[in-house]
């Protein structure tokens, strides 16, 4: 089997066309690529603790305005671009999330509010580990909840793209014994230089390496490089006139859409975004949070538009390690808090609804008198999604020690 490869000589980006034989094990890997799970899950981690109370605004909760005199989002009743967008008479979207409003009302987008981890940690790094491992309070867990859900559905012939993180690192969410790769930049996911020598040699050096840490990684890398040759990321045209924001988030979403459409066997995709830790000048209608939300709203709307009918097979879910203080701090920002909100989007989502047991925001209703209380465990939301959507049958190894009985699901998904 001979295939053409495009190689970019680094200096000056000279393109050449070359031909070479593919190692046998890679031929097998590609020939064996099975009909993949049609269902795709896209996971977003918002690192730094998003301020969920200014994202999905409880505008009918008087305490919200009492606690946030300078950064609260005004009530929607006066309308306009500088007020919350009414969702259900109690909650409203931050005005920068306007692109999500039609998705909510058409039933494609659901929101969970006052959701989070039961662990009290206000350390970003512990809380992220706990949420990513899916084991709050237990720091010895070596793998992530999403990797364990893939372990529960073994797929010996799975594509090198079964689980992909878009960024330079493999996040804890995807680390574990099931194969997963990180792609920093789809356009540059190839080897420079002459393929006959470099690819062949690197492949066999890493494939036969006795280095336990590097052996598997090398194999995943070269399988992925070869599969990607079917793609042409430089010339990808989003469908339906979708326009992704020019941010890293927008770029990652576009790459996810491209990989899903290319049918390379990707089942789960992970991306993350930063900048949410606004202790100072978080802002209200305008400001740092508003800028991040504009990116989020435009990105998700573009992704939804680009995917079109295929959105029926996709579920998107977002999370952030914890929320922020119910009251604003002394610098028009917020400090580390507790409960947050999650977004769930897709064709099979029972959207148009804010799923919540609203805990209230009076001083005595707040968690430790300062933060929104957690009334829904994030594991229940994720458990429902991987069980109904990906088809993970047994949730107990994925979220050990957590009672994730289907009868307790919030029923955010249709089937």
């Amino acid at each position, binding site marked *: 089997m001979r295939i053409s490869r495009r190689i970019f000589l680094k200096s000056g980006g000279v393109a050449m066309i070359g031909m070479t034989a593919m190692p046998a094990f890679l031929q097998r890997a590609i020939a064996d690529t099975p009909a993949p799970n049609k269902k795709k899950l896209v996971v977003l981690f918002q690192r730094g603790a998003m301020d969920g109370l200014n994202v999905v605004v409880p505008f009918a909760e008087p305490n919200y305005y009492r606690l946030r005199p300078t950064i609260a989002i005004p009530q929607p009743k006066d309308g306009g671009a500088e007020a919350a967008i009414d969702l259900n008479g109690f909650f409203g979207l931050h005005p920068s999330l306007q692109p999500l409003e039609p998705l909510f009302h058409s039933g494609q987008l659901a929101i969970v509010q006052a959701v989070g981890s039961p662990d009290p940690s206000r350390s970003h790094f512990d809380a992220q580990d706990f949420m990513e491992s899916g084991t709050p309070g237990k720091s010895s867990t070596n793998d992530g909840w999403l990797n364990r859900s893939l372990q529960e559905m073994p797929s010996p012939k799975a594509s090198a793209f079964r689980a992909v993180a878009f960024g*330079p690192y493999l996040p*804890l969410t995807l680390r574990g014994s099931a194969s997963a790769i990180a792609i920093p*930049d789809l356009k540059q996911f190839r080897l420079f230089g002459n393929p006959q*020598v470099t690819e062949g040699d690197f492949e066999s050096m890493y494939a036969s390496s006795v280095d336990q*840490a590097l052996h598997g*990684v090398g194999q995943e*890398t070269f399988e992925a490089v070869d599969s990607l040759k079917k793609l042409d990321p430089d010339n990808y045209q989003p469908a339906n006139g979708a326009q992704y924001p020019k941010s*890293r988030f927008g770029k990652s979403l576009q790459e996810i859409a491209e990989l899903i459409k290319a049918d390379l066997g990707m089942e789960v995709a992970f991306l993350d975004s930063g900048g949410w830790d606004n202790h100072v000048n978080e802002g209200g209608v305008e400001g740092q949070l508003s800028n991040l939300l504009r990116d989020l709203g435009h990105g998700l709307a573009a992704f939804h538009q680009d995917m079109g009918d295929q959105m029926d097979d996709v579920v998107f879910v977002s999370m952030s390690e914890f929320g922020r203080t119910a009251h604003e*701090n002394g610098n028009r920002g917020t400090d580390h808090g507790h409960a947050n909100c999650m977004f769930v989007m897709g064709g099979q989502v029972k959207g148009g609804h804010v799923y919540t047991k609203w805990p209230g925001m009076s001083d005595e209703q707040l968690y430790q008198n300062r933060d929104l209380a957690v009334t829904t465990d994030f594991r229940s939301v994720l458990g429902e999604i991987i069980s109904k959507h990906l088809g993970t049958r047994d949730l107990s190894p994925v979220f050990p020690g957590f009672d994730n009985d289907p009868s307790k699901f919030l029923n955010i998904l249709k089937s």
Partner: protein
Amino acid sequence: MHSAHAFRSSRTRTFTQHRQRPISILRKRLDAAGIALLAAALLLSLAIIVPSVQAGKSSAAPASEKRSEYNLPKSFKGKLPITQLTEDEAILHALDRLAYGPRPGDVDRIRKMGLEKWIDQQLNYTTIDDSALDAKLAEFKTLKMSSEQLLSKYPPPNQAAKRQGLTPEEVRQQYQQEMQAKRQEMRQQGIDPSMIQFETMPGPQRIQAELDLATIDRAIYSNRQLYEVMSNFWFNHFNVNVAKGADRWLLNDYVERTIRPNAMGKFENLLDATAKSPAMLFYLDNWLSADPIAFQHMQQELALRRQRFQGLFMGMEMPAPRQFPQAGRFPNGQPPQGPPKKQERGLNENYGREVMELHTVGVNGGYTQADVIQMADCLTGWTIRAPRKDPQFFFDDRIHDRSPKIVMGKTFNYGGMKDGLEALHMLATSDATAHHISFELAQHFVSDNPPQSLVNRMAQTFLSSDGDTRAVLKTMIYSPEFWSRDAYRAKVKTPFEVAVSAARALDAQTTVSPQLAQWVGRMGEPLYQCEPPTGYADTADVWVNAGALLNRLNFALTLATNHMPGVNTDLSGLFGQDADSDPSLVLSRALGDFLGGQVSAQTKGTLEKHLSDPQILQARLDDPVKHVNEGLIAGLVLGAPEFQRR
């Protein structure tokens, strides 16, 4: 590139044993093909004693050397407790851990002078001559400039516009035109493209570019290698992100005058220096933190003074009180607490938390949320004077919390700056901090899961030496765990370590190479751009993944084949004229120089198989004699699994 990634993922602040994620668990997966290959590999190297191979470790050493005891001469090792490594292995180990890898000739030099003597020099680095590097760094003029000078010479776009009475867009256009002209002129003069890129980058970016290049040059060329390793270690421990607002102008001062002078000194001095540095005060928001009551009081006094002042100008109009523009949209038409007090300022607990969680006692160091708040209270008033013009540390007693504060059971009621200094002193000298810092050092220098016995011994020294970095390092280096077979090549290099050690191995000469810094970023570790305060991870599980590996291989090829603008390598000088037509000689010299000749049979076999490839031995059009493509061989060796470890 991806500076915005990861508020976390990049870091293990793992400083207790149970928080580790061994690679063995992460990489259990072996499909059929993998098992077959691995089996074949093991058969090939019958000699490898599997149980002795530490998780994730390559077993390059021949079996006969496994677990052997070596009696190295006293003149070589002095009192260093080396028993499990050969002389050459010990030298390579020292160069990989206490330096950024071997340069050509280093191994011979250390063998001659004795390992203990070399280590002693590295610990007492001030006597080592570094004038060649200093001369090289002289062209990076921003290193020696104060923040005030940087702000004045490379102003933020808005300030520059204001100064010239233009809009920021006009300034940008004007600047672009100037740079366009400059670029053309330089091109006509035949100046190197990387130099053109460097000379025409926007002002503020130039500051960071110079710092990046200086950091890389120091790691490659400094003779004070351990000092450079420690400077980078401490920066990462006390991480600041250059991309956060004003930190672009504050970072030079932080690196040059906060971190580096304290890199081999007492921990408490370093902690205090970072706490007072404008860069850290800005990065973790403490410069805005104030006791709300004290702040209100101050505002009232200021207002009173203003009134008195205005009294002097009787008859002039007083400014109207500010109206809140959106009052009508709140319930009852009014925001519940009246118009927002624009001038209100209060406590910010960001730094108070991270100084405990990350900088000192660690996340399990025994503090509570209440301690975080009271720690922040102790540090109220630690702020920045003239942040936009001449940023300097400044203690503003007027916004300092005057009430008694209790942090981790100890009361701080001294008043003034002493509250903060004493609280920092408590943290710097605590048992938890001694263990936390010792663990991080051992994790960096020894292994991802350093032996508890070693960490405890280092922590003892930390406590008895008043947190003396040099003393703690000495305890570590004089421990058998440091020289154990298990520790040998146990660490996976970070991208920065890959880049710098490759340049050292090739004896590469940098002129000015912004692209070299960009490659470090592309491999996943953009310099000075780690967003979360944790700094970058120091464990393999974060760095070993498919995407990153590909970039490492591409980096190795680019650098070794002389395609990195601003970096030159003289491979025929390195490998010798006689190797020019003998591929196997090039390979054996590359393996010898870069990896001490220690590679697995698999790696060596793969490389040897391709020596006859026409790509390796090339004839040029004007020269019928075939020449070895030395860059390609060097690149393949630098991309080999063994070079990813140190």
